[in-house]
């Protein structure tokens, strides 16, 4: 499309956390205009009544049963919703970007193993994972884009250069220890996410068997030892990967690998070993942005590589990634609408 053109967009699940981020990003995007945002619970209320930062956006939620026809439909609904409505979605839009896990995996077998099966498996072949660092070649023209899982995104971004550069071959033991903020749970929230119970924690919430392992395995070809902790922040996912390569590796090798994979990537930053306060990747350095930071250290005592990877789960880990993928799919400027640089100082954004 020509760059000045404006595309209409709908956001299903607009009252949720990632739906709100989509609305914010679309409202500031030069090529999009928001036609519809749905919510069953807040039907007819202003989007600003739920998302106070969007008080200046003149838009009311409508019922997802009354879909309008748009160029691009973004679905930010819980797992299972999109696979049930995907035909309807395509009746109303040429391009569908889904933020749930419904179209991330390639095969029904994976959904049988990790989820509760799949009811629209004919779409699995068509969908492209939204993360451009993985799928830049496949995205142009894609009609069904599947936004990645936030913890999977952080992990994959951290480890991928080691596979690209063949420092790892998939036979190694890989431990991934993840720390995430409370927005990852979405706007619902039960007792465990009430402020008094959720503040100040380091809480093992997925000690084993986290579903994002499926995505990691799909893209890196390796099964990882994966444990997720909830910590006291709102936005942010940080993955620390402890890796034991078969052959000796130098810091130079690591820098080559990481620069090789990411130096042309507009949203990836390498951070390792500098001075000052921020020496390694950390979530608050990328909060509110679509940037991902990765870095590493080499443990001479036991030949371990420690990889750090940090993203904002609401941005690079979901809504930002979705827009990024859509920009490429639709032939727009890749970074359009995603230029925000982030804040300093910033607390627990």
């Amino acid at each position, binding site marked *: 499309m020509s760059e000045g053109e404006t595309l209409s967009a709908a956001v299903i699940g607009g009252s949720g956390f990632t739906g709100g981020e989509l609305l914010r990003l679309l409202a500031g995007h030069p090529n999009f205009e928001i036609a519809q945002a749905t919510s069953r619970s807040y039907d007819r209320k202003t989007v600003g009544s739920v998302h106070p930062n969007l008080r200046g956006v003149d838009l009311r939620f409508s019922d997802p049963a009354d879909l309008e026809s748009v160029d691009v439909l973004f679905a930010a609904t819980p*797992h299972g919703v999109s696979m049930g409505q995907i035909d309807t979605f395509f009746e109303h839009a040429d391009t569908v970007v889904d933020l749930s896990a419904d179209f991330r995996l390639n095969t029904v077998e994976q959904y049988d193993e990790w989820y509760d099966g799949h009811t629209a498996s004919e779409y699995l072949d068509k969908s492209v994972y939204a993360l451009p660092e993985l799928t830049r070649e496949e995205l142009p023209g894609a009609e069904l884009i599947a936004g990645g899982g*936030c*913890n999977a995104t952080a992990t994959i971004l951290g480890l991928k250069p080691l596979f690209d550069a063949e420092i790892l071959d998939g036979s190694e033991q890989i431990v991934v220890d993840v720390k995430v903020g409370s927005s*990852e*749970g979405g706007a619902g929230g039960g007792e465990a996410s009430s402020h008094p119970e959720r503040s100040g924690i380091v809480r093992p919430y997925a000690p084993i068997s*986290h579903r994002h392992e499926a995505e990691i395995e799909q893209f890196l070809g390796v099964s990882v030892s994966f444990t997720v902790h*909830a910590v006291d922040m709102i936005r942010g996912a940080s993955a620390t990967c402890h890796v034991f390569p078969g052959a000796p590796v130098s810091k130079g090798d690591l820098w080559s690998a990481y620069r090789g994979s990411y130096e042309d990537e507009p949203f990836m930053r390498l951070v390792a070993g500098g001075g000052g306060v921020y020496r390694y990747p950390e979530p608050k350095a990328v909060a509110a942005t679509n940037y991902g930071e990765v870095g590493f250290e080499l443990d001479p005592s036991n030949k371990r590589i420690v990889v750090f990877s940090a993203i904002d789960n609401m941005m690079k880990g979901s809504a930002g990634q979705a827009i990024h993928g859509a920009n490429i799919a639709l032939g727009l400027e890749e970074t359009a609408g995603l230029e925000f640089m982030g804040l300093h100082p910033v607390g627990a954004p």
Partner: protein
Amino acid sequence: MTEAECVECGAELSLHDDLEAGEIIDCGTCGAELEVIDTEPPVLDRAPELEEDWGE
């Protein structure tokens, strides 16, 4: 009060008298939630886990 062994951690559990099958009790040692399968004598098993969606 009868006693039973926690099937998770092996600790002794003291059970109340009007125990009913299907009831869920938690172990005071490890915290596991146990389902009362039978009452005389008491048989316990791990309660089916509440699938919790922490969002992803």
